[in-house]
């Protein structure tokens, strides 16, 4: 992982540099015009968020049941990234909606589900910060339950919305626009790799903090 880091970083940087060019060259969607291109950031941000949630859930389970502190490092890193990528999605979504359909928030199923998950992982960070000693375990339980509830949230919000059908904010653009496939694939891959890069960095930081704690304790043991 360590050896791959620098090449990975270079690749991600290159992808993010190339992406705007490809996106600008991609065909315009007929009804929405320029604003539709926010889609190349919006959907990949969701992909990164859901990846982060999955990592957080699994890492939290490993921390809670096996007591592995390195898993806790992954959990907190993934939670922070889930919040960050979620924020990107939650900002780009309404921007798109406002410009395309004139309304900031329509209780669209996907945006609403994402908002709830964002709340859950912000709660995770709050527990870690305000929960007092032993809060890592409490946060791990939050993440585990949060990840477990994701399919339920998604399904119930989805059904909740389709009873009163409104314009869907995320139509299947990839199918309807042949030229959008390649920039979309590039953007998705770029975001996922960005997630991996940031996760690696943050986990390294967590590991260093842990080592520092251990050295501090060892020094006292002398």
């Amino acid at each position, binding site marked *: 992982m360590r050896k791959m880091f620098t090449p990975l970083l270079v690749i991600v940087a290159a992808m993010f540099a190339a992406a705007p060019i490809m996106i600008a060259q991609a065909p315009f969607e007929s009804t929405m015009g320029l604003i539709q291109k926010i889609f190349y950031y919006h959907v990949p941000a969701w992909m990164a968020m859901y990846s982060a949630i999955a990592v957080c859930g699994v890492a939290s389970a490993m921390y809670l049941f096996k007591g592995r502190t390195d898993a806790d490092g992954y959990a907190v890193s993934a939670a922070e990234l889930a919040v960050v990528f979620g924020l990107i999605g939650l900002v780009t979504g309404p921007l798109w909606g406002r410009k395309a359909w004139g309304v900031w928030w329509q209780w669209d199923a996907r945006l609403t589900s994402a908002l709830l998950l964002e709340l859950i992982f912000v709660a995770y960070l709050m527990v870690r910060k305000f929960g007092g*000693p032993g809060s890592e375990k409490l946060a791990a339980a939050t993440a585990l339950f949060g990840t477990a509830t994701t399919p339920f949230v998604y399904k119930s919000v989805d059904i909740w919305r389709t009873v009163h059908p409104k314009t869907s904010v995320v139509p299947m653009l990839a199918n309807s626009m042949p030229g959008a496939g390649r920039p979309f694939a590039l953007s998705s891959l770029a975001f996922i790799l960005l997630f991996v890069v940031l996760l690696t960095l943050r986990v390294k930081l967590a590991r260093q903090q842990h080592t520092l*704690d251990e050295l501090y*304790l060892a020094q*006292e043991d002398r």
Partner: protein
Amino acid sequence: MHADFDSVRLVEVSRHFGRRRALSKVSLTVGAGDIVGLLGPNGAGKSTLIGLMATLVAPTTGVVRFGDRTAREMGPDLRKAIGLLAHELHLYPELSARQNLTFFAELYGLDPAATVDAALARAGLADRGDDEVNGFSRGMRQRLALERALLHAPRLVLFDEPFTGLDDRAVCLVSDRLRQLASGGAIVVLATHDLDLADGLVTRVALVRDGRLIADEPATSGLRARYRSAVGSA
């Protein structure tokens, strides 16, 4: 069926929360018939040690063995052999003395009819059995809590600051009880910062300070003089 053991061994046990150390590489063995005094200033880690022996706290590193086996290997039955009395007393104030004892008796699988009345008598509360605990004085609660902790005749008896708020007579009663238990084969561990009360009672001394075990030896007389500087205001 009844999980039993005649010694408890802590092997290189550490417990820390981030940078805050509660215990650091403590190795200690306590055996049947011992009354071990865990002595040390407040915040030394005595309560954490008690918690570890009670299976309420898990070590960060190291292992706690009951006989040869760990708590996980022995399962929930292990707790039939453990009795804990801490400062907070673990009594339900809204319930009567009898109801408290009956609840815990049933929880441990004992027949309340056979044990509760005897326990109330030993606590000197036979006539107050049906009164609610929140009306009891500290001393009365302590006596009730003592009986509650010992109701199931545990092999490992853990007391965390049991003498707080007791008058001299009560202190004598508790001390006598502890001696009885030890001579009956129980492993008694007593955590306290009060050297005078531990004097003459404990058979071994385990001195704890800043999470480390700094002495582990048979008790001699004059604990205060011997350990005062070590235990005194840190």
